[in-house]
Every structure is written in structure tokens, then in C-alpha cells.
């Protein structure tokens, strides 16, 4: 990977033990069940760019984000921020919290209801020891509130005095307090109304331009991803099935899953259009199908898809897909 990559994930995996208890296993004679929430996921994010991680619930996108944020140690593989292995951060051995911050989906759950907003925003400054004096802190909180479109006077209020959109602005201000370079956004607008969503997306793009932020942007909403991302990685059952630039992915998707996901996205522009609904459902991740895990739902599946797992491979022009038939289907 080139030196300009800010975050590089290499064969990142996170497995969870979903087995029944030891006794139940012995009595029923069942083996351990390992749930591969994230399975050998690799991607790189250049400095200043936005990589979107897309997929349906249970595909492992949030678990991948937690590993990348250093909140969860991976089972194997690495997530490397500049020269630091995020595993060290997850284990509390390396301090990177200043540079890597996270914005969560639910602005109602992510703010402490008992703390005044100013205290919430100043918390990272205190925790990371970059606080300065009380006056400096108040100054910085006011400046952050202004940056996210609120007023410095709002620092004295409590979260319940704000609407959902304003709360997400507060969460963004808190994430920016330590002047991070890399921000992981996990469904930052999914809980918001569309007119508010537009405000938050615009704000996030403005802040990226002003501060040169790098985003890992997690979403299930393809239209939002199309608006925010430079590159898009599509996940299915813990694995990346396609990784391409935004233009490539949306104009000529290579993987059948990506294609169906785009076709199934509800769009206000498609009035009365019959969607071709995707067949079947996401299989249980604790017991994924053999071969390509998408094959039971794939209209193009052949014998090889049922027996052999396709690896993510380059299709030329900076695009990768994990499909045996990617070229033939293009």
C-alpha cells in the first residue's frame, strides 16, 4: 500500500463464539459455533477521502468499524492507522483516541442526558489531557458549537432541549473536539428526518473540506452513500463482495449482490416502478452457505459458486469484486 493511505485494513477478521454452553454442547454432542461477523476484510482509505461501507443489517459493517476504531480487538488480521496497529489501541496500549473519533447513529443514546452539552463536548479534551485552562476549554467548546451550526450559549443546555438533528450536531462537535484526522461515522443520519439528514450530510462534507478529515462512512442507504463517498465497499455476510469507486459502483456494479441492492433501493424518482425484489433473505451468519455465500439468492449462480468461495480480486481499473462470474456478467 502507498504511504498516503491513512487507514489500511488487512485480512481483518472478528469472530464471535456463538456456541451453546459447554454442558449443552457435551450433552447434545454439538460442536462450537463460531460466528464470523467480519471475515478477512481488506481495504485502504487514502488521507482526506471517504470510504463507505455498505450492507444490510448483520453484514458486519458496524463490527468492522469498531475494529477500525480500536474499540474491539480483531480476531486476526490488522487495521493500521498510519503506523499504529489499532489492536494496540483496543488493548489500551497505544493512545490514538485523539486522532480517531466516532459518530454514532442514535443521537438520543450517544449523549449523556445528565451532562450539560458543554461538558459533553469538553469531555474528550479533559480525558485526553489536551484540556488547557477552564477559559480555553470554554473558548474551544464555543468555537466547536459555532462550527456545527449551534450557538456557544447552547453549552449550558441539556441534550433533551435539542431536536434530533441538533443532538447529532452536538455529537459531531464532540467528535471534532480533539481535532481528529480520521472519523468513523456509523449510520450518522439513519435516525434523522430527511430534511435534517440533508443538513447533517452537508455539514459533514463542509467539515471534511475545512479540516481535511478522512471518513469511514457506514450506511445502509445507497443514495446517502452515493452522496458522501469516494469509494464504496459492499459487505455481505462478513465479507467485502465489491470495492470500487463511487462512479464505478453505481454506474456499472460488478457483483450481482451490488446490482440487486441498487435495483431494490426505493427511490422517489421511480414512481410506480415495479422493483425486482431480491430473492430470499440474508442467511444466518453463524451458518453461512458453502461456496459463495450469496449463491442461494443469486440469479447467475452456477456449480462453482456452490462449491468454491470466490476471493476478492482485482478487475482492473481499481475495482475489486468477489464473484466467479464478474467478467461474464459485466
Amino acid at each position, binding site marked *: 500500500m502507498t504511504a498516503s493511505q491513512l487507514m489500511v485494513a488487512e485480512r481483518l477478521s472478528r469472530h464471535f463464539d456463538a456456541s451453546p454452553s459447554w454442558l449443552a454442547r457435551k450433552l447434545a454432542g454439538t460442536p462450537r459455533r463460531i460466528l464470523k461477523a467480519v471475515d478477512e476484510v481488506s481495504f485502504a482509505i487514502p488521507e482526506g477521502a471517504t470510504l463507505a461501507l455498505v450492507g444490510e443489517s448483520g453484514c458486519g459493517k458496524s463490527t468492522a468499524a469498531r475494529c477500525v476504531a480500536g474499540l474491539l480487538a480483531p480476531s486476526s488480521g490488522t487495521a493500521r492507522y498510519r503506523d499504529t496497529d489499532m489492536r494496540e489501541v483496543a488493548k489500551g496500549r497505544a493512545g490514538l483516541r485523539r486522532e480517531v473519533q466516532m459518530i454514532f447513529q442514535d443521537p438520543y443514546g450517544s449523549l449523556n442526558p445528565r451532562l450539560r452539552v458543554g461538558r459533553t463536548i469538553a469531555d474528550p479534551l479533559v480525558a485526553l489531557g489536551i484540556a488547557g485552562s477552564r477559559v480555553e476549554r470554554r473558548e474551544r467548546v464555543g468555537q466547536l458549537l459555532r462550527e456545527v451550526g449551534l450557538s456557544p450559549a447552547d453549552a449550558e443546555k441539556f441534550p433533551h432541549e435539542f431536536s434530533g438533528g441538533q443532538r447529532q450536531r452536538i455529537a459531531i462537535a464532540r467528535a471534532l473536539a480533539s481535532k481528529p484526522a480520521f472519523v468513523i461515522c456509523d449510520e450518522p443520519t439513519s435516525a434523522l428526518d*430527511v430534511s435534517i439528514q*440533508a443538513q447533517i450530510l452537508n455539514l459533514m462534507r463542509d467539515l471534511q473540506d475545512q479540516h481535511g478529515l478522512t471518513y469511514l462512512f457506514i450506511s445502509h442507504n445507497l*443514495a446517502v452513500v*452515493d452522496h458522501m463517498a469516494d469509494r464504496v465497499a459492499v459487505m455481505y455476510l462478513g465479507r467485502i463482495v465489491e470495492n470500487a469507486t463511487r462512479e464505478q459502483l*453505481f454506474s456499472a456494479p460488478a457483483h450481482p449482490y451490488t446490482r440487486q441492492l441498487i435495483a*431494490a*433501493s426505493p427511490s422517489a424518482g421511480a*414512481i410506480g416502478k415495479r422493483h425486482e425484489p431480491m430473492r430470499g433473505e440474508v442467511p444466518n451468519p453463524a451458518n453461512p452457505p458453502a461456496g459463495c455465500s450469496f449463491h442461494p439468492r443469486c440469479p447467475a449462480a452456477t456449480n462453482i459458486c456452490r462449491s468454491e468461495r470466490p476471493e476478492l480480486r482485482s478487475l482492473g481499473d481499481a475495482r475489486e469484486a468477489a464473484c466467479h462470474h464478474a467478467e461474464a456478467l459485466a
Partner: protein
Amino acid sequence: MPDAPLPIDRDSDGTVMSEIGQAPATSPVLSADQGPLVSVRDLVVTLNSANPVQLVRGASFDMAPGEILGMVGESGAGKSMIGTALTGLVASPLAITGGSIHYRGRRIDRLQGEAMRRLRGREIGAIFQDPLTALNPVFTIGRQLVETIGEHLGLSGQAARAEAVSLLAQVGIPDPQGRLDSYPHEFSGGMRQRVVIALALAGRPSLIIADEPTTALDVSIQGQVIELLRDLCARRGTAVMLITHDMGVIAALADRVAVLYAGRIVEIGPVAEVIARPRHPYTQGLMDSIPELGRRLPRLRQITGAMPRPDALPPGCAFAPRCPKVIEACHQAVPAFDADGPHRAACIRTDARVLAA
């Protein structure tokens, strides 16, 4: 029209207690087979507290038999409250304090107790957002279906079971016979929502109130449920009030759409018309602020500010403080609809009659 809230007693799971309510005040203004299926006039729903707050402030609309009417709006706009009023589930501290609801020409907004209970389910079914809480976790879905079928169709035993299997098959559950004895937790989210749809259809209603029926589902499953609802309703001639915040779902499913803002319908019309040529500045702003696949703009156009809280509404048009086209007169009076045709908006800036005056 009495302004006093209707005292409706409910037990803990929300069903009306079986006390027989007063005789329904029927006013057969429309005969059952030619008029609209539903006719709502100036509906007001109030939250009674120390300072009563109107959550729905005079909504009027009709629904034709078999029609899918979308109700779209942001959280707090009052869209769910209208659905709740139609299902007769408005419970204290909420109350219908004005206007009327007619179903097949019969006034239903003052029905209580058993009379409402007979209407609900058999005539008016409901589908809610979260399929996990809509089903009782301790009973098999077969038992829940058979109970509902018995209640509404008077079937029992084998006949009820056969009807339950047929319903599960219609909503696309594989192996319906075998799944009858499964519990809700044994189904995936999408399959659970299909069961909820089967339950709503069990009484063979003419109207289904679907409140965010696809919001809790993944995109790929959402498409399946949309197609299912459309096919079933077309086949059975069931009308649907589709309550959602998602214009994409409205575009895929609805015939007409009503846009709500701060408790009022600000625009109503055929879906294609409203989406292609939105008239109300709020609808215009809403459409512009939705990111569209394949239409990347440097910035999304955004509506500044947020919807006012129902207890702090501005005078005149509630959208005026956020409106790019606001004039002095907007703050004076609540605007009426600008036209009599099928597509109308409540805005004086689009009203040729006001502009000419």
C-alpha cells in the same frame, strides 16, 4: 359536534374493553357502494394536558375503495396520529376533539367499545412498524391467526387452520402448514412482517392502515414486502393508508400522497404529480433534500431549521419561518388549499386566486 374528548376505556394491551358504547351516531350521507371508502373532515386530535396541544389540526381527505394513499411527513407531523384515529385507537391522554371520520358513509369517530372492535380487524386492519412487538411472543403464529380468524370470520377448528395456512401461503411464507406451529422469534424480520400482514388480512378488511410497514426491514426485504402489499391489495381490492417518512416507498406503492407538516396536510395529489411537480414550498424542499442515486450534487439543498413543536406553532402558515418564498401575508392566516382539483397545496404563494386578488 361535541368538543368534549371521548372517554374510551382500554385495558393494558390497548384493546377497548368490552363495555358496549353508545349507539353510533350514523349519518348516512353517502351510500356504501358509490361514495368514498373513507371520508375524513377537519379531523383534530388533541393531546390533553395542562396546556392541550393539537397534534392533528384539521385534516380532510377521502380514500376510494382499493386506493393506496400515502401519508408522508417528518416525525411529529401527525401522520401516525391520523392512522390511529382511523383504527379507533386514540386513547387518553389523546382524544379526537373535532371533525369527523366516515367509513362507507357511516360515522365511526365516535364509535366505542364493541362497535369499534367489530369494525377494527374486520373492516379496518392495521400493520405496524415493528413486527416483533406486533406479535405475541408466547403464542405460535398459528394460534394467533386462528384466534383472529375465529373472531372475525366465525371459523373454528380445521376450517380456521385451513384459512390460516391459506393466508400464510398468500403472504409468501414457505411451508405454511409446517410454520403454523412456530413462534414469532423463529421467524426472520421480513418473514415476521409477512405474518403481521397475514394477521391484518385475516378479517378480510377493506382498508389497511400500514404505519411504516417497511421501515424496520433491510432494503432487499423492503422491496419484497412492498411488492407483496401491492399485489395482495390489488387482488383483494383492499385500500391502504401507507404511513411513512420514505418518499421512495411512497413512489413505489402509493396512488396518491398527502404531505403532512405540523399536523396539517399541506399538499395532496396523485403521486406522480406531487413528486414531479411539488407545489408547496415544503414539499419542494423535502424532495430536493432527499439524496437520489445517480444525482450527486456538491451540496444537498436543505431546508433550514426544523419543524416547530406542536406546542409552539408560529401564527399563520406553520412552514413560514423556514419558507424561502415567505411573504408578510403568510404570517397572517393559516392558508387554505389553493385549488379544487385532485392536486392541491395549502399555500397562498401558489394560489392563483389569492395572487390575483
